[in-house]
């Protein structure tokens, strides 16, 4: 610094120099030149250099955010037929027009999976003028155009003659243009929530919802992944713009039970969310819940009314998600709809399955009441096959929809397993029934979402019935951690609440003591759960055993449908698929004429949103069936 100041002083005091002084520059003739002989001598571009693109086709999801952000519209998404898109991805890949590209790297900073990068290559020699329209790949997916240091020649430098391992400007999560962190959802802490059935998740307030909605990049990968294809990016955008009514309208186009789905949806969309590739996916489910909760009166917000009466009558058996949806869609089209359900209220499996800490009854009733307010007639406490005969329904109505779900809990069928309690009975009794006395040491058999519901319900009951006493809830599942079917967040929550897991064990025998009371469960180690074809066929190491003590065992290993209400004569006409699902055509119609079906008896996803998707298909099918006939 001092030197610089001295120089400055000198400069300021300077006088006109002599004519000869410039000749001092001759000394530079004897110094090493700063230039070098290109191309025989080269210097590599810097580590952050923004040169030609690289794209990892394996990681790229085809979301198209790069094309959207490009200020010069240099990027086009091109369909690549050879790529078999993974679920929740597109087979489109970015194509760069280097006649337009300004190498700003915004595409790199917006790329959610971080597949698009810039390399340090920047030389392109070609005789063809259109050769700079280019589909970038990288050395992983395009070995033949990337060369090692030895093979690479600068005289051939081209978009398709590149150096391998020559990354330049790459994406960095700290500097991305999207927000990888989710707005945290406020929850009741595990120590507190396990003492009662208080709803675990508190929901977003308006600010939080807006902030979360703002993260959405509108790439719509989620909409592809959603079985019911909800217009997710639209309703999220409406939340961001503070138009909750608009958001609700968008949701109701495809899903008439947002209050339910906003709480318990399996959220296939969140698995597809492009922001979730490296960061946390958008809280799409919580945003839907926010919309549903923020609007007190659906009717006022939606302003819908059914079409003029068509005079057609439709019977819907089962008021679960698929039954409710079919009823809603058909009612809007002007048909008169009657829904039968054996329970005292709507919701079907939603009413008995998800415990109160996940899905309170009020949330269910909000959706059901709205559908009822449109003129759908609900006949609750009416069991088809007992209170009203299926044949009569078939005679009286123009179309029948079966949304009966799977209502019989399967049993493990080992020695003494008749002493176990079945999951659905346990859940129903404790959600809408009188409640149940539980043991101090409970084993839940199963590794799915129902098993988690059962275990966490049991834990709460234990804490309520035996306050300040040592209680234990453990689960035993065939599946090991990596293939456990329950949602990860469910498993996490269960762990936090103190539930013990025993994955990879199968039940061998329910052990009784001398008085005939349950003493525990004898388990054996699982060899494999699936066979080579991926079918469920567990095998065990018979000699590796473990004994778990318990005074109560609950089985939660899956459910089956109950078709007993269908008379024998008709039931023989009902065809099933290889996976023992009811066979339906593209209109949702079963092999029995004018009988349609959807939900858990049709699809293999066994969740609410897929049931809604089935219902949409069936509603269209029924409408077509009813209007064509006349």
């Amino acid at each position, binding site marked *: 610094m001092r030197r610089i100041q001295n120089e400055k002083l000198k400069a300021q005091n300077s006088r006109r120099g002599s004519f000869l002084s410039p000749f001092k520059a001759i000394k530079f003739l004897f110094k090493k030149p700063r230039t070098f002989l290109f191309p025989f001598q080269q210097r590599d571009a810097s580590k952050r250099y923004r040169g030609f693109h690289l794209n990892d086709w394996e990681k790229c999801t085809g979301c198209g955010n790069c094309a959207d952000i490009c200020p010069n519209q240099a990027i086009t998404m091109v369909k690549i037929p050879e790529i078999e898109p993974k679920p929740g991805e597109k087979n489109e890949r970015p194509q760069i027009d280097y006649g337009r590209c300004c190498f700003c790297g*915004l595409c790199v900073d917006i790329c959610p999976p971080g597949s698009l990068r810039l390399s340090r290559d920047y030389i392109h020699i070609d005789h063809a003028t259109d050769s700079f329209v280019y589909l970038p790949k990288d050395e992983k997916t395009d070995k033949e155009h990337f060369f090692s240091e030895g093979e690479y020649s600068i005289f051939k430098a081209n978009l398709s003659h590149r150096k391998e391992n020559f990354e330049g400007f790459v994406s960095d999560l700290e500097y991305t243009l999207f927000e990888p962190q989710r707005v945290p959802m406020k929850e009741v802490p595990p120590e507190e929530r396990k003492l009662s059935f208080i709803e675990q998740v508190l929901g977003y307030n308006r600010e939080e919802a807006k902030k979360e909605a703002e993260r959405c990049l509108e790439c719509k990968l989620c909409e592809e992944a959603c079985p019911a294809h909800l217009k997710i990016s639209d309703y999220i955008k409406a939340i961001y713009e503070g138009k909750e009514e608009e958001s609700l309208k968008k949701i109701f186009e495809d899903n008439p039970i947002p209050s339910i789905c906003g709480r318990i949806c399996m959220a296939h969309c969140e698995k597809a969310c492009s922001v979730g590739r490296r960061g946390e996916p958008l809280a799409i489910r919580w945003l839907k819940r926010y919309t549903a909760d923020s609007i007190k009166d659906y009717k006022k917000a939606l302003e819908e009314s059914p079409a003029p009466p068509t005079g057609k009558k439709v019977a819907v058996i089962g008021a679960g998600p698929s039954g409710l949806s079919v009823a809603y869609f058909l009612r809007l089209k002007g048909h008169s709809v009657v829904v039968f359900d054996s329970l005292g209220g709507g919701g079907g499996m939603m009413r008995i399955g998800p415990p109160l800490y996940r899905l309170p009854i009020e949330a269910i009733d909000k959706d059901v009441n709205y559908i009822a307010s449109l003129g759908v007639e609900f006949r609750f406490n009416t069991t088809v096959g007992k209170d009203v005969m299926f044949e009569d329904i078939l005679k009286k109505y123009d179309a029948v929809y079966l949304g009966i779900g799977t209502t019989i809990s399967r049993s493990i069928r080992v020695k003494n397993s008749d002493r176990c309690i079945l999951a659905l009975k346990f859940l129903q009794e404790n959600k809408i029934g009188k409640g149940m006395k539980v043991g101090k040491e409970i084993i839940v058999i199963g590794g799915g979402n129902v098993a988690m519901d059962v275990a966490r319900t049991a834990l709460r009951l234990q804490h309520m019935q035996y306050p300040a006493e040592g209680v234990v809830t453990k689960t035993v599942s065939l599946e090991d951690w990596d293939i456990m079917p329950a949602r990860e967040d469910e498993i996490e929550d269960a762990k936090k609440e103190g539930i013990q897991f025993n994955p990879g064990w199968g039940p061998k025998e329910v052990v009784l003591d001398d008085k005939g009371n349950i003493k525990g469960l004898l388990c054996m180690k699982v060899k494999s759960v699936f066979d080579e074809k991926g079918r469920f066929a567990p095998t065990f190491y018979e000699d590796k055993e473990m004994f778990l003590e318990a005074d109560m065992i609950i089985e939660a290993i899956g459910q089956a449908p109950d078709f007993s209400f269908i008379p024998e004569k008709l039931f023989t006409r009902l065809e099933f698929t290889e996976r023992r699902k009811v066979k339906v055509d593209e209109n949702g119609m079963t092999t029995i004429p004018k009988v349609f079906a959807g939900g858990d008896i049709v699809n293999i996803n066994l969740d609410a949103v897929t049931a809604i998707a089935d219902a949409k298909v069936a509603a269209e099918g029924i409408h077509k069936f009813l209007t064509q006939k006349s």
Partner: protein
Amino acid sequence: MRELELFFGPQHPGMVGNFSITLKVEGDRILEAIPNPGYLHRGFEKLMELRNWIQNFPFVCRINVIEPDSMEAVYAMAVESLANIEVPERAKYIRTIVLELARLASHLFGAWAYANMLGFDTPAQWAMADRDHILDLFEELTGARVYHIYILPGGVRRDLPDGFEEKVMHFLHALSQKLPDYNETFFENRIFYERAKDIGKIKKEEAIEWAATGQVLRATGVKYDIRKVEPYLVYDKVEFDIPTRSNGDAYSRILVIRDEMVESAKIIMQCIEKMPKGKVYERTPNPFKWKIAKGETYVRVESARGELGLYMVSNGGNTPYRAYFRTPSFNHGLFILPKLLKGANIADVGNIMISLYVVAPEIDR
């Protein structure tokens, strides 16, 4: 003698770029000079209205090819002022370093242009080579040599790479050692002195009246610099002088430029010393959804050529409703230049024009 019309540029070695002047001459003397801009008009201000707040930031640097960083900075600062974004402290220091490095690079480029035009090829090549070292530094920091696209609303795009500070210090020392050579061969060269002295002379009052800024104003003795008048970034936390000269001619202007390089080096060194650790980027909202509340702003910085301002209006949308750049060359090149050329020799056209430090893309935008 007969009056002639003479086209000077855009293809002329003495021209500052894609710019031309129509000269009305009588013999060797210029009667009238009519600037003829438009060769580089790309309509950036209009294009900006069609692109969102983030898409615009790789755009603006192209308005000044020689010193793109002040453009990026003024845009980022305008967006930040509209959206009330506070930039992390470290980012402010990095921005200051980048802006001063850009000023150095620009002045070296200016020295090259001037020396080259007058035939001082040796110092011209030195200046170009030294500028190249700055471009190397920029390449390492930002990933590009000319259009750095580095300063964005919310901070800067990446933190300094490892060892960058040392490299900058090393370069500054090397440059300071070079200064006597520059002085002897160019700034204090007798031939150059004779050539530039009393050429394109502006009086103090005239400079103020013609709204001159930068070296053009400071060479007449007015101590005016946005960095002092209205400090932005961290210019109020570093010590530096504003070099002035009183003669107002081309020679004074080039000496102001030379002295400013020394001041820039001082600022960079202080920034490197004082720079805190921490974040360099405060993430702005999702670029596809980002809307900025209704409002207008005028932000100005001292670019290498003078006062650079950006007037920007948001109508509550996700694009600027209007953006207008106040660029120093616009004034110097279109308004002051014809006044100075009147009565000058044809041989001095390039001399005067380059001493005004005009850069053509700033005029056209």
